[in-house]
């Protein structure tokens, strides 16, 4: 490598994180620390039924017996779980009945984030784009949900999980923790004990949800963790496309985000779940940023399909493996991922595809992009159980390196217990070399644009899976995340 490139890499700068502002709003925040009293207090604040409290306490008591996982390829100082506040909510007298009642400060925040709850307005002016129903979660609570009435006509339930516990307890009780058990892992147990809100969605039998449903997560308060829980049930033969976005203010200390997402696709249903994760990644020296420790899992029953698409550009540390259990015959699972790390970010992300039913199919396309001094790991498990005759899996894991101080790692685990299975794994590693950049430059294209074009080309297969409204944003986000990563 040429000397120049070293000099240029020294100049690596963080791009301005666009969403680093703080909303000045009165908070209802509980003191830091975690004990049974805190779990009870959260449950009481939510006015939860007894069974929910018991469920939380069970999770909490189990959590006490667990240890933080250490097998992941990331390093961070020990987290002091007693130094975090487990509940923070923007003070509103009550959840607004209409969107006009939302606090003006919150409205301003939504505007800044480019989120429209306005049911009249189409998203970003593109003629003919479908409307998007949004649930906005700030810190510990859902602030507002749009299009509720319209969806209700179809029997679609889309609300915060707190509301669902009040209004649809039978659905919540039936499905919560059936995909991710409360004792599944350290962070899932913690989440179960202290989760404060999140989104809930139920699509009735045979209904094709006419609009994208989406949740926007925002951390605002200081010294808090965000523990949201999403439960999505697609009843037989239904379809839903769900989007998730997230941002946080720039703060010097790390903040913990430990979410749980459970997807249930009953016979013949299809769930498409897309995430654009842009939590604050920390500054260029690795100070601050979100610890994103998330458990996401879906179960696909007979002839059902669960598809995860994720574009991960944020967080100081990402620990996340959206997975699919292919429980029913002919079930399909997909995982499309672009994970970008720059500066001092660390990501250990991938998926699990567990084949149980016959003729089940899974597809994994993972594109890692590492720049700066970051570390990017793909960790994926493909398991074919004895029962899964004729299971098929195809995995492709590509890594792209920018500069020579970053790392890319791939940890594939393949366990096959049925001889009729076909499992394929392909992997490539490439580097954006000086000669490619120079070729762009010589045609009049500057380096920033060159990197953006290369990266978007590289990630195209995954980006194509995103709903159109999201794809454009995600492309821009990729370019911004890598700004200044090459000279």
């Amino acid at each position, binding site marked *: 490598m040429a000397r120049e490139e070293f000099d240029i890499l020294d100049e690596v700068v963080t791009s301005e994180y666009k969403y680093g502002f703080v909303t000045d709003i009165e908070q209802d925040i509980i003191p830091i620390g975690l004990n049974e009293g805190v779990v009870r207090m959260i449950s009481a604040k939510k006015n939860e039924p007894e069974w929910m409290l018991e469920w939380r306490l069970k999770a909490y008591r189990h959590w006490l017996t667990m240890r933080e996982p250490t097998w992941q390829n990331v390093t961070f100082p020990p987290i002091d779980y007693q130094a975090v506040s487990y509940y923070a909510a923007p003070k509103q007298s009550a959840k607004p009945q209409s969107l006009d009642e939302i606090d003006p400060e919150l409205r301003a925040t939504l505007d800044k984030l480019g989120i429209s709850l306005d049911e009249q307005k189409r998203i970003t002016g593109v003629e003919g784009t479908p409307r998007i129903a949004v649930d906005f979660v700030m810190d510990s609570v859902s602030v507002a949900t749009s299009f509720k009435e319209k969806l209700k006509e179809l029997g679609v339930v889309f609300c915060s999980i707190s509301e669902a516990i009040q209004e649809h307890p039978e659905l919540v009780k039936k499905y919560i923790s059936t995909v991710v058990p409360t004792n599944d892992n350290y962070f899932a147990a913690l989440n179960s004990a202290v989760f404060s809100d999140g989104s809930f969605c139920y699509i009735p039998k045979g209904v094709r949800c006419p609009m994208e449903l989406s949740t926007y997560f925002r951390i605002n308060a200081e010294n808090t963790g965000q523990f949201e829980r999403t439960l999505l049930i697609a009843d037989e033969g239904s379809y839903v496309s769900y989007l998730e976005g997230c941002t946080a203010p720039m703060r010097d200390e790390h903040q913990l985000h430990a979410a749980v997402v459970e997807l249930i696709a009953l016979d013949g249903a299809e769930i498409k779940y897309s995430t654009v994760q842009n939590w604050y990644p920390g500054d260029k020296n690795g100070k601050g940023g979100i610890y994103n420790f998330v458990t996401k899992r879906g179960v696909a029953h007979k002839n059902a399909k669960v598809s995860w698409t994720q574009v991960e550009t944020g967080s100081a540390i990402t620990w996340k493996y959206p997975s699919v259990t292919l429980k029913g015959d002919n079930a399909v699972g997909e995982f499309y991922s672009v994970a970008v790390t720059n500066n001092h970010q660390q990501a250990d992300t991938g998926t699990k595809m567990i084949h149980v039913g016959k003729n089940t199919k899974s597809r994994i396309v993972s594109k890692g992009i590492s720049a700066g001094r970051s570390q990017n790991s793909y960790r994926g498990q493909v398991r074919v159980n004895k029962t899964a005759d004729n299971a098929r899996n195809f995995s492709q894991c590509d890594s792209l390196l920018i500069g020579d101080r970053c790392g890319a790692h791939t940890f594939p685990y393949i366990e096959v217990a049925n001889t009729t299975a076909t499992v394929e794994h392909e992997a490539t590693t490439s580097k954006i*070399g000086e000669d490619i950049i*120079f070729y762009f430059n*010589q045609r*009049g294209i500057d380096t920033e644009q060159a990197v953006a074009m290369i990266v978007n080309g590289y990630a195209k297969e995954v980006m194509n899976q995103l709903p159109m409204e999201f794809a454009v944003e995600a492309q821009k986000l990729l370019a911004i995340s890598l700004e200044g990563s090459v000279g």
Partner: protein
Amino acid sequence: MLTISNLQAAVEGKEILKGIDLQINKGEVHAIMGPNGSGKSTLAAVLAGREDYEITGGSVTFEGEDLLEMAPEERAQAGIFLAFQYPVEIPGVSNTNFLRAAVNEVRKARGLEPMEPKDFLTTIREKAALMEIDQTMMSRSVNEGFSGGEKKRNEIFQMAMLDPKLAVLDETDSGLDIDALKIVATGVNKLRSPERAFVVITHYQRLLDHIVPDFVHVLYKGRIVKSGGKELAHELEAKGYDWIKAEFAEEIAS
């Protein structure tokens, strides 16, 4: 148009160009010949602004501007085009997208609006026909899976799209069979104009049978040791580079 004065350049401390003087005017075609390792490709790279080379002396002005002060993309935008000896493959970026970005960057630098998609496609069609390029190539990734001949033709096609003032062809004939060579040369000839200058770098005389130069310069050990008309190329072909080596060995050594 281009004035090179006493240009010296080194790579990793080793001096490659040892004082080049060259004056190129509009409409002229200059051939630069020389044995391997004489500094031909270095000269092309230095003109295009490749950062591996350190300029140790001399100057280059392009249309009155100090070329050496300009970033590679600025040079391209000002109208300098390099047809690469080894064009790189760019997976995931289609020829169409790549060209659109390049054409619009060059237009922006010239104070023009981005080209309308419709006009852009029309231009592509015209130039592709001119260069005998298959339209289906446009949706493929830049140079990916192209044969050697296709890559070189793509370089000339890009040149046609970007409409440069000065085109530098770095051993465009290398690796081409005679048919491919003819197609490339025909393409270049179609782009010859009184407004455009060419620097044709080649090891062999055969390219110059097809692209007939106005001037031929022989580069040897980092210096232009001989200049003449197109007949100089034939003389080299007949006598070989040993003739040059023998004649100038003493002088260079001293």
